[in-house]
């Protein structure tokens, strides 16, 4: 066995997909695939992380991501604890620093953090000696979402990313999902398009490795996948959009659009869906929709991430061999 056949996970934290290289991503996706297999067993639990503690610190509303991490931890036999805004001292004015130090004093191996401030995960990773997983920080990054999206796409695309075209549709500017996906998909060789009203495009998008469209009909032509983003209703209140009716007329993904895409094109959405606003009912419920596959993939990806970060020293693997659990 040569050195090149051996892969070692080198990361202390998972804060942003920009810290990962292609080997890391391939490995994470492979590992998630072996965990996916566990998720299909009658008894969906292995003792891998027995005795490890995972704290889920959600300073922003989330049900699916938190549940997904929770299930992922429990399937690996880790003890998981949730702290969310409603029940926490954040409402009493405690700073992120003090909340994080307090959580750490309880001795977790991994802290999973969701926070409304861009950079929050990096901030606590600097502060604490334990592993930190970014479960979404402000508009900045949502690495496990991008990984699970790629996991779902890899299955749908039969393991081939190169030469594929994917359209991200909706509010790019305020989307951590978009930022993480643009980077990750580009790294994997996917051609990425964005389609959005100009008021919801980020500053400096000209330098992103993407093609930008304002017309959905043109943007969707010959794509292999469309990723719809959730439109936060507060964008209209902030004056970035005149009216949601006009938004849905211009940007709601319907079957007439999908007809212009490649025949086997698939549709993703990170959820929760605004049906009729960014995605039409019939598209959401069509065979092209991967929405529920994404949810299942989310558990597998988060199992892989927790496994890699909670096991120390970092695990190494021999390429091509399946993980036996």
């Amino acid at each position: 066995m040569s050195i090149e056949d051996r892969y070692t996970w080198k990361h202390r934290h998972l804060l942003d997909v920009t810290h990962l290289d292609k080997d890391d991503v391939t490995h994470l996706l492979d590992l998630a695939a072996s965990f996916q297999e566990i998720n299909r067993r009658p008894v969906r639990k292995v003792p891998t992380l027995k005795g490890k503690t995972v704290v889920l610190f959600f300073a922003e509303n989330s049900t699916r991501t938190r549940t997904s991490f929770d299930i992922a931890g429990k399937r690996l036999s880790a003890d998981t604890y949730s702290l969310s805004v409603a029940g926490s001292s954040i409402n009493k004015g405690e700073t992120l620093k003090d909340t994080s130090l307090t959580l750490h004093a309880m001795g977790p191996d991994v802290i999973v953090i969701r926070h409304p401030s861009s950079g929050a995960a990096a901030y606590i990773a600097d502060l604490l000696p334990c592993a930190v997983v970014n479960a979404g920080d402000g508009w900045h990054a949502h690495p496990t979402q991008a990984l699970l999206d790629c996991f779902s796409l890899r299955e749908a695309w039969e393991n081939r990313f190169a030469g594929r075209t994917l359209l991200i549709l909706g509010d790019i500017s305020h989307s951590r999902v978009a930022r993480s996906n643009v980077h990750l998909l580009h790294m994997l060789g996917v051609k990425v398009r964005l389609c959005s009203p100009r008021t919801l495009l980020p500053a400096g998008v000209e330098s992103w490795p993407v093609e930008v469209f304002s017309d959905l009909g043109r943007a969707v032509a010959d794509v292999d996948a469309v990723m719809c983003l959730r439109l936060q209703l507060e964008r209209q209140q902030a004056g970035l959009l005149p009216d949601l009716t006009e938004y849905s007329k211009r940007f709601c993904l319907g079957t007439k659009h999908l007809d212009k895409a490649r025949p086997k094109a698939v549709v993703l959405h990170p959820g929760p869906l605004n049906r009729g606003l960014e995605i039409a009912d019939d598209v959401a419920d069509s065979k092209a929709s991967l929405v529920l596959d994404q949810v299942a993939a989310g558990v597998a990806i988060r199992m892989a991430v927790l496994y890699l970060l909670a096991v120390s020293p970092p695990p190494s693997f021999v390429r091509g061999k399946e993980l036996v659990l």
Partner: protein
Amino acid sequence: MKLCVRNATHLEASVDLFVAEGRIVTMTPSGSQPVPEGCEILDAKGLLLMPSLVDAHAHLREPGQEYKEDIASGLAAAAQGGFGTVMCMANTVPVNDTASVTRFMMDRARASHPHGPHLRPIAAATMGLKGEEMPQFGEMREAGCVAVSNDGKPVANTELLRRIMEYAADFGMTFIDHCEDPHLGHGWMMNEGELSGLLGVKGQPAAGEAIQAARDILLAECLGLPVHIAHVSSAMTLDVISWGKSRGVKVTAETCPHYLLLDESAIGNYDTAAKVSPPLRRPEDRAALLRGLVDGTLDILATDHAPHASHEKDSTLDVALFGFTGLDLALSLTWGLVLDGGLKEADLHRLWCHAPGRIFDVPVNAFSPGDPADFFLWDPVQKWPANRGNMRSKSLNTPFLGRELVGRVRHHFIGGEKVV
């Protein structure tokens, strides 16, 4: 008291400086005149003789936020930093919008620094900085204020701004504007551009500053009155000022050392130490500002000394407060620009002393007989780390913390009295 500073270097000439009764008697070539009887002698060989500096833009936080800074600690930092005069902004608690607050500030300064550095407060341009009605500038002028500004909270109402500029002009007080469109990029944390887009952070486009500067300049032209543009951060604003000057408008402007030495990349991984208002901009803005100081588009340097306690910076970028300390570091930072060849020593005298003295009608030392004996001796090669032990400000919120600086004030005299 009589003092003779011997063998100092003043703009490359070796000189002796004679001081009596707090004033300059004469400055002569070294050894050309005998030292009178009973005169204290200070040998300054190897040290540069510079006039005490004027900082036209500082926040000293007293009254109300003495945990960040107070007048005594701020003036101590100023003295060590080479400043003989500090113009402090009005955003204290309470706001400096009445003569009684101004008098309190002046009393505090005299109590801790009877010989100087001198405090020259800046009156709030509107009551409580709320942008609604103007304070009694005449009384505040009598109490010691030298200019008016709404720093940090720009005056959005142009009709009110016009009346402020007109009324303040009766007392020879210039309006200093923190130029920021109140709506464009509202809630920003850094410069708007590629980096803010990648970090997922709300940015302020450079136009947010330039638009307001253009308004001020057009208004100043219309009224025939002066206006001073504070802390210019962008090439775009620089162009607007240059255009105003070419039209003969009485517009003057400042920038700060950090806009010359840092760009937005300092914010890197959400580093709150680099969060400042206006924001650090692109490398090309930095280069343009340096050119502006040399060609005269920018008239002065100022620190925008804005101390904050460590817990106010130790957070995510959105929560962290804006601003850097500057009084301790400003001259050493700009001395670095002289060492790099971007500025000349004489530029520093002009930008930090003579020009602000002229714009705000503050007495400064040109080393002519009768001038106030406000000067310091500068060790041009001494290296020192920017750390707690070397800085007098109560706060340490500077992106230059830990950096090794070159050049240090060795002896500082104000009115002929040694303050450092």
